[in-house]
C-alpha cells in the first residue's frame, strides 16, 4: 500500500512533522517494498489553504493513507472526500511511524484533531 508521512526531513530517519498542511515534506512509501520518494511541500509558507493544497499533493501522489501529527478540518475534509485514510498523533521518526502502521497499531482518525491554522504559529 502506498502511504504518505509528513516529515521534517528527506530520509526515513527524519522526525515526523507534527503539521500536515505546512509539513516540510511528504515521504511517499510503498509499504511492501519500503521504497520511498520525497515530495517537497510547496505550501509551507502559503498564505492560506495550505492543508487543502497539501492534501491535493498527496492525493495526486496516489497514496491510500496519510500519517501525520495533526490535521485541520479543511485538509481532513479533502482527504476524506478522496477516500484517503488519515492517522494523526504520530511522533518519532518516519520509519517508526511506518512500522507502527504496518503492525496495525494505529486507529484511523475520526475527524480533524486541530483547528485551521494550527501549524502557522499564530
Amino acid at each position, binding site marked *: 500500500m502506498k502511504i504518505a508521512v509528513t516529515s521534517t526531513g528527506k530520509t526515513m530517519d527524519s522526525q515526523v512533522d507534527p503539521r500536515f498542511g505546512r509539513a516540510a515534506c511528504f515521504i511517499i512509501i510503498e509499504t511492501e517494498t519500503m521504497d520511498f520518494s520525497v515530495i517537497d511541500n510547496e505550501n509551507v509558507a502559503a498564505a*492560506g*489553504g495550505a492543508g*487543502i*493544497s497539501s*492534501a*491535493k499533493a498527496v*492525493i495526486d501522489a496516489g497514496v491510500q493513507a496519510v500519517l501525520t501529527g495533526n490535521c485541520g478540518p*479543511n485538509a481532513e*475534509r*479533502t482527504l476524506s*472526500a*478522496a477516500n484517503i485514510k488519515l492517522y494523526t498523533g504520530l511522533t518519532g521518526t518516519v520509519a517508526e511511524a511506518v512500522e507502527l502502521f504496518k503492525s496495525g497499531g494505529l486507529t484511523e482518525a475520526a475527524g480533524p484533531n486541530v483547528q485551521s491554522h494550527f501549524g502557522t504559529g499564530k
Partner: protein
Amino acid sequence: MFNHILAQVNEMKIAVASGKGGTGKTTIATNLACAVARTGRKVQYLDCDVEEPNGHIFLKPDIKKTQAVTVDVPEVDLKKCTGCGKCGEICQYSAIVHLKENNVLTLEQLCHSCGGCLRVCPADAIKPKPLNIGDIEIGKAGEINFVHGRLRIGHVRTPSLIKEVKRHIENDYVAILDVPPGISCPVVEAVKGVDYVLLVTEPTPFGLNDLKLAVGLVREMNLPFAVIINRYGIGDDEVEKYCVSENIGIALRLPDNRRIAEAYSSGQIIMDVLSEYSEHFSELYVYIKSVKARIDDKRRL
C-alpha cells in the same frame, strides 16, 4: 453645464474608525448622526461593523426592509466534469479542488467569488450558486436613515457584506459610517472612498499603539482624517504629543465622565441625556466641514 454642477449636492461621507476596539466609535458615530440631523441636513447612519453591529441599540430604528445578501460560489455538475483539474489550478484560495477523475470538492467558506473556475472550465460543468452571507436592514431612526448589515454566524465574507451596505449611500445625504475596529480588510472596505475619517482613540498606551496602526492605514489610503480622544482625562498625554508631532488634528476631546458611561450602558444617545454635550458634536461636524473645505480648496488650486 455650470448650473448642473451647482445643482448637485454631494454631502460628506464620514467614516468613524479606530485601531483599537471599544474606544467609542459607535458613541461618536450615533451622536454625530443625531447632531447633523438636528441641523436639518439629511443624514444616513450606516453600520459597517457587520460582524457585531450595535448602532441600532442607540438609534433604535424602525426597520422597514430586510434584504438578504448573497455571493456566488461554484457548483460543479460532476456528470459534465471531465476531471481536467483546471478549476483547482486557477483558484488562489483552494476553495475548489480536483481530487481524482471527475471528483471535485468545493469549500464554499474559502471562495472569494472571483469566477475564475467558471471561466476556465472547458466542459461548462461549473455554475454559480448563491450563498447567503448575511442581511441588510434598512429603516428610520427619527430623521436619520438607518442601514446596517448583519453577517450570518459561521460566514467570513465580511468585506462583501460591507460593500453591499455601502451601496445604500446616497449622494445628497451626509453619511456617517460606523467602521469595524482594527486595520484589516473589513476596515479597508469600509473606509474606501469616504471623504473623511475620524479615528477614535483613548489616551492610554493601548489606544496610542492602535491609533498609530490606524494612522498608517489612512495615510496609505490617502484619506483626510483627524483624531477624537474619548475618555479624555484618563491615562496620559502621549496621544496628544503624538498628534502634535505628526501634525494630526484633534477634532474632539470627549471627557471621561461617569454619566456618559451610564447613558451608553443603557443604550442612550449622550446628547439626549446630557444636553451640554450636544455642542461637542455639532462643533465636531463644523470642524470636519471646515477641514474638508480647506482640503477641497487646495485640490482646486
